[in-house]
């Protein structure tokens, strides 16, 4: 499924974009492009506009200026279902009624593929089953979600996003409430989705080392602008982290994975 010849092309692009809430402008004149078939981590200090950028890329937040482009086509004026078939998104704190079963919730991811009155078809069933299998949830398919642990629940949400079968997936802090084991699980799954199925994934991450370990590209955001963007090996160094987060740190490289990691030393000026 993964078309290597097209990788490194631009899948999603914000161009001279400005967006915000009410009176507050979160970013303006922002240019940002996301490479196809890769995992891009969006990192930056609190309030730097990571979530806002993600919403703008899903056309959930009207842009005041500029545009969002998917495969070069502007995203303005798309029908909601057509948009959902191209871009799936998981927000920071999704919710659904406790008594809903895992399979029923994952099935909600199929909405964009259903026409009018059509009932659940074979394609839907297979997509749900595949999503449950990929997230190792087949055994829990008929459990009410209220009985699941936090880690299991996060996998259910990701299964719903997988069932949506969109080539682009946006994830807003998917490891937020997870312990390290579940965070690793989740991000390994995200990486598999991208590398085995060619999905373009944008993931907002707080933990720099998780970003460095699992992402192909990193975008550092600071105060509504791109401070640095590019492949992890090129972007992830002490100087850029110091500039974006205002901390002193040492960046080393793991011998086995070749991935950089950072050891925070102190906040700058302390």
């Amino acid at each position, binding site marked *: 499924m993964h078309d290597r010849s097209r990788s490194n092309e631009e899948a999603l692009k914000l161009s001279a974009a400005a967006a915000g809430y009410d009176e507050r402008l979160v970013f303006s004149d922002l240019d940002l492009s996301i490479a196809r078939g890769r995992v891009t981590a969006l990192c930056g200090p609190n309030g730097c506009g990571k979530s806002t950028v993600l919403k703008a890329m899903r056309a959930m937040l009207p842009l005041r200026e500029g545009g969002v482009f998917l495969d070069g086509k502007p995203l303005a004026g798309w029908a909601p279902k057509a948009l*959902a078939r191209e871009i799936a998104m998981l927000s920071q704190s999704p919710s*659904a009624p406790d*008594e809903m079963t895992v399979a029923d919730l994952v099935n909600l991811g199929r909405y*964009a593929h259903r026409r009018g009155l059509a009932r659940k078809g074979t394609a839907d069933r297979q997509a749900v089953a595949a999503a449950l299998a990929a997230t190792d949830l087949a055994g829990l398919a008929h459990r009410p979600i209220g009985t699941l642990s936090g880690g299991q629940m996060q996998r259910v949400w990701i299964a719903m996003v997988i069932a949506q079968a969109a080539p682009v997936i946006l994830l807003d802090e998917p490891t937020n409430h997870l312990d390290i084991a579940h965070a690793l699980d989740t991000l390994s799954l995200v990486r598999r989705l991208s590398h*085995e199925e060619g999905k373009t994934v944008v993931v907002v991450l707080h933990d720099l080392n998780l970003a460095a370990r699992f992402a192909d590209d990193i975008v550092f955001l600071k105060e509504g602008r791109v401070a640095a963007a590019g492949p992890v090996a090129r972007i992830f160094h002490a100087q850029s982290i110091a500039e974006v987060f205002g901390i002193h740190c040492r960046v080393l490289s793991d011998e086995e994975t070749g991935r950089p990691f950072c050891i925070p030393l102190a906040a700058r000026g302390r």
Partner: protein
Amino acid sequence: MTAVAEIPRAPAHGRAGRLAALLLLLVAAAVTGIALGSSSMPLDRLLPALVGQGAETDRLIVWGLRAPRVLLSALAGMALALAGLLLQRATRNPLAAPAVLGISDGAALGAVGFLFLFSDAANALTVGIYWQPVAASCGAAVFAVLVAVLARGAGGGPVGLVLHGFALGALAKAGVTLLMIAGPVYRASQASIWLAGSVHEARWSDVAVLTSLMALVLPMLLVLTARMDQLLLDDHSAEASGLPVRRTQALLMALAVVLTASAVSFVGAIGFVGLVAPHAARLLIGARALPAIAASALAGAAMVVLADIAVRLAFAPLEVPTGAATALIGAPYFLFILFRTGRAHA
């Protein structure tokens, strides 16, 4: 991930069985409602009368008086229960219901205002009776929009919405009371309908109009089931899945307004059916929209038919408003979920 695994089948939940039980309850209640009254009728007289045989007076009582009353109760109960279900889905607020949000009283104000404006000195309407649901819909719509706008502006979460609803409902009720007093004296005899809700003046024409309205609205609801299911998600996830959230919410609210107004223009603001019936349905068969619609409708119908039987039996020969009986069950239940919701959002 190309493996085409099939999901193991869901264990049988007995949904169909529970729906059948609800239907049976409704039928039993309806038959009881027709059999009982100021003169109760044993089965050996009731059955012939139902199929158009037996004594003339029995036929008259069954077909002229009690059948329309029971049918009107059932239809109004369905409409109010479905309105409640739609409001609870649209607002994701377990406390939402037509009476709680002031929409029932808004509809009553519309209907009473219509009677006030379009009655001549001889107590006859100067325009067709079928305009009454339209007037009630206008009243209900005004109050629905007001409560939505005020609650959104002020915030305050699920309980805040309810507070605005109650305040607006009180305002509409005051309007109804004023119109009852200012209007012709004979209208005062209808006070029990417009202030508390009652089915005691049921006529076949009412049943016919309400049946047609339900026949219009039900297919629309069936088309909306997939959207209602998506609304079980939070706003953000629902929108990400491809649902136009605001448009869907507005559509559900509009249908709830029409359903409420349809019921209220014939039986008045019978309270708490729209609150309790969807909850009962959810407890019985879960949150999925299609079975929830069926179960809410059946539960709402049974609730009003049973409430009417209760007030007829307990207070005969007085005509106690049906709404008093539904409130007797509904209000404590409302307090219970208010307590629970308040704690959850504390």
